């Protein structure tokens, strides 16, 4: 990513030609991230599939690059499934998760992908689609929720997804009612938490559910632990500590605000005491991505008191994961043109030709300073503290409510690069409100010792190779 940022001329030409904002994806980095997960698998001697959660980014280049490797893909809509099939994924490498309409279930059943089912009703709906006319058995995995813990009650947020673990017998009854229609491949959980102890309870619960299925004559072989492995956005933990301390002080009014209109990011002052909790993604996460998976597998199962990875291996189960953000670490950035820089009531304002939905940092609580790409040599090399305004006619349209600290003052015409935005932040919520354009997307890759580029939809991982050079 850093070497892309050095390509000042190329980046400024691209944004001139294709408009601001402009999204850039780096498909080659994906392979490295997949490899890091594979290393954890081999370390624990485990087999299974790494399903990229497509919802993290709409890019075709990223999906096609993955299709060229050995990873799988997790789709959550009809269009995502079509996209994955069209990008070259064989059905056995595709799994459908999340809320599904009938059309998605129809295509899933016909193409033979695995369906990760959310409810008994969905399973019944799928059965009707499979039996009329009769198709070969559809691989299904059952997503479970509401796992019970013993000893210490481990709380978990209520989820809209999944069959309660205690209702596994009803799933098995339903499978018995439709012999030859389904092939139970395994069970799954997906918890929206960074806490390991909740996940340990869930994983052990899945093992118990699989055992129940085996005792009823099913032959499941996998556990899918979903995603939520996270990304470390900040190398230096002390910086994060210093910033969050300063933010608490600012909320208490003990220092000048660090945010627009003294926004507290979930903290508020009440009678000299800070209340609330910090609603920010923990920017410094020393154990994230593949390392988090490793930590989870090393965690002891609460009841059997043996590492979860060891239990999976003992039972000969495959481990599936569905990382989104973690696989896209360092895989993309968003560029935006600077329209105006002005000083206003003691604050520096940088107005950009993009809006908060194009770089949805605020929505996900991630605090990343952009990198300034100067078109010409900077005339003012001093650091500057600035607020970043967007291009929507809305008071709330700040790219981030936080004051950002830039190493040199940008000027109109310069470009700000928001790095590491590939997971969720690039186009998950991009909108055409006010008829403002949604960012064009460009794929960049290294070939012949130089950066090459094309529009995202033009990218296929077919290199011209050395022979053509």
């Amino acid at each position, binding site marked *: 990513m850093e070497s892309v940022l050095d390509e000042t001329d190329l980046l400024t030409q691209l944004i001139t030609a294709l408009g601001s904002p402009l999204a850039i994806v780096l498909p080659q980095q994906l392979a490295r991230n997949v490899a890091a997960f594979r290393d954890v698998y081999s370390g624990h001697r485990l087999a299974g599939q790494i399903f990229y959660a497509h919802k993290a980014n709409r890019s075709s280049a990223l999906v096609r690059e993955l299709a060229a490797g050995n990873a799988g893909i997790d789709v959550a809509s009809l269009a995502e499934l079509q996209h994955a099939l069209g990008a070259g994924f064989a059905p056995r490498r595709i799994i459908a998760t999340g809320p599904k309409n009938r059309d998605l279930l129809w295509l899933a059943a016909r193409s033979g992908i695995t369906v990760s089912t959310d409810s008994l009703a969905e399973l019944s709906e799928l059965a009707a689609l499979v039996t009329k006319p009769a198709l070969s058995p559809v691989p299904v995995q059952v997503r479970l929720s509401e796992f019970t813990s013993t000893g210490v009650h481990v709380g978990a947020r209520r989820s809209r997804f999944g069959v309660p673990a205690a209702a596994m017998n009803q799933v098995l009854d339903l499978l018995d009612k439709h012999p030859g229609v389904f092939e139970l491949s395994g069970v799954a959980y997906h918890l929206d938490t960074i806490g390991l102890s909740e996940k340990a309870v869930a994983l052990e619960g899945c093992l118990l559910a699989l055992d129940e299925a085996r005792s009823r004559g099913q032959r499941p072989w996998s556990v899918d632990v979903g995603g939520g492995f996270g990304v470390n956005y900040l190398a230096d933990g002390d910086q994060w500590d210093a910033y969050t301390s300063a933010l608490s002080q600012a909320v208490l009014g003990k220092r000048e605000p660090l945010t627009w209109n003294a926004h507290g990011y979930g903290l508020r002052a009440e009678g000299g005491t800070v209340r609330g909790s910090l609603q920010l993604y923990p920017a410094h996460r020393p154990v994230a991505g593949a390392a988090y998976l490793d930590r989870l597998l090393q965690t002891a199962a609460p009841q059997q008191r043996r590492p979860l990875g060891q239990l999976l291996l003992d039972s*000969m189960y495959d481990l599936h994961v569905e990382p989104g953000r973690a696989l896209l670490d360092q895989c993309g950035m968003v560029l935006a043109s600077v329209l105006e820089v002005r000083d206003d009531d003691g604050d520096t304002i940088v107005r950009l030709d993009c809006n908060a939905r194009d770089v949805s940092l605020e929505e996900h609580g991630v605090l990343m300073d952009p990198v300034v790409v100067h078109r010409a040599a900077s005339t003012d090399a001093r650091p500057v503290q600035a607020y970043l305004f967007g291009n929507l006619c809305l008071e709330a349209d700040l790219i981030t409510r936080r004051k950002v600290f830039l190493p040199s003052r940008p000027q109109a015409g310069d470009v700000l690069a928001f790095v590491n935005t590939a997971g969720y932040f690039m186009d998950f919520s991009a909108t055409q409100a006010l008829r403002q354009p949604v960012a064009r997307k460009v794929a960049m890759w290294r070939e012949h010792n130089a950066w090459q580029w094309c529009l995202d939809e033009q990218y296929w991982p077919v290199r011209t190779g050395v022979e053509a050079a």
Partner: protein
Amino acid sequence: MRFEAMTDVIGNTPLVRIDPAVHGLRHIDLYAKMESLNPFGSLKDRAAWNMLLPLLSRSGRDGRTVVELSSGNTAKALAVLAGMHGLSFKSITNRMKVPEIKDLLLLLGAEIDELPGQAECLDPTDTGDPLTRMHQRLAGTGGDHLHTDQYFNELNVEAHLHGTGPEIVKDLDGRAPDYFVACVGTAGSSTGVATALRQHHRDVQVVGLVAHKSDFIPGIRTIDEVHEVGLFDPGVYSCIETITADDAIDGLLTLVRRCGMLAGPTGGGAYQGAVRYLRAVDAGLTERRTAVFIVCDRVESYLSYVRDRRPELFGQLPRRNSAATLTGADLAQASTVEVAEAEQWVTERRGLVVDLRSPFAFRALHIDGSINIVDELFAELLHGGLPFGRGQSVLLVCPVGEKSARYAALLARMGHPQVRSLDGGIIAWRDAGAPLVRD
């Protein structure tokens, strides 16, 4: 000494001088207030009892549950006190970080409720913090809870204002110390003691100790966390200093090894922070001064906390016959058998088949006729010597043939001539289509 109830034993703890040869301060007498000698083991016994007492006199308390947001000494004291008065106790906590305390609470009959961890996909519109969630939960259950609310309850401060603080003055012959050093947790003890001392001597210097932000020290909050505490008033402290987990353990070691005080990390941190602060003061002094710090609780509950951070303190001799000591040459000696041969071996019942996987996995699927000794247990057996005779043939089975090969090598090194490892493990066996049974 005769008492009617254990609650009468709370308080009146000794004030004990630290030998100057240990701390090295020339002009300062340093005293430890031994709160660890309270009946349930900590300073928190006072606050817990003071906060619970008025709730007990309320009518209709029968069958109710005492609740507190605590994962440490307050929970422990409340669990004991609740049990003494026919009530149950529930501890609501973000995460139980000290395993011994968790087990102790369960032993005392407490219920532990862990709050969910932070969401991975952040929802910025969800502004619920643990305290708010707990209050919601308590309100939602029809008010049959007795909530002691240690972070906001003035009775927490009063326990020390009328107890701990005046006791120190009395033991110093009616004089307040010149320096009081306290770790800040709920801020109840530091605020209460400081206020009491200042009623005697306006100029008492009060040093508040907080934990370094990236560290965890049980019972001490970080500089950010203290601002979330209702009882915390920065005006109480002459200065706030930071200590690390390393400091706390250094102090703990000094107290337990040299002073006869079996203090936990909070007390250790208080000692270390006090000496560091006072050393600078001491250099400029010509007259005698007095300083007091608090030994909050006892060391026994923190053995795993210390072990995690200073494993070398628990240095044990390497155990005999350990797989960890195998060399490359040893491993080369392990004899293995391929699946096809192993199948024959099993059908002809040529010897013992030992499956090293977990009982859970074994129960689900295993080789017919095999016995299950999970690897941890097997390792324990080997420390003692050969678990079967030299004439007994053995086939070891594990998931992928890696662990079984190590144990086969170890057994060969121990002099057993007939131990083999299933090459590729039970996964290779399954993949070859060899039979597996479920009983």
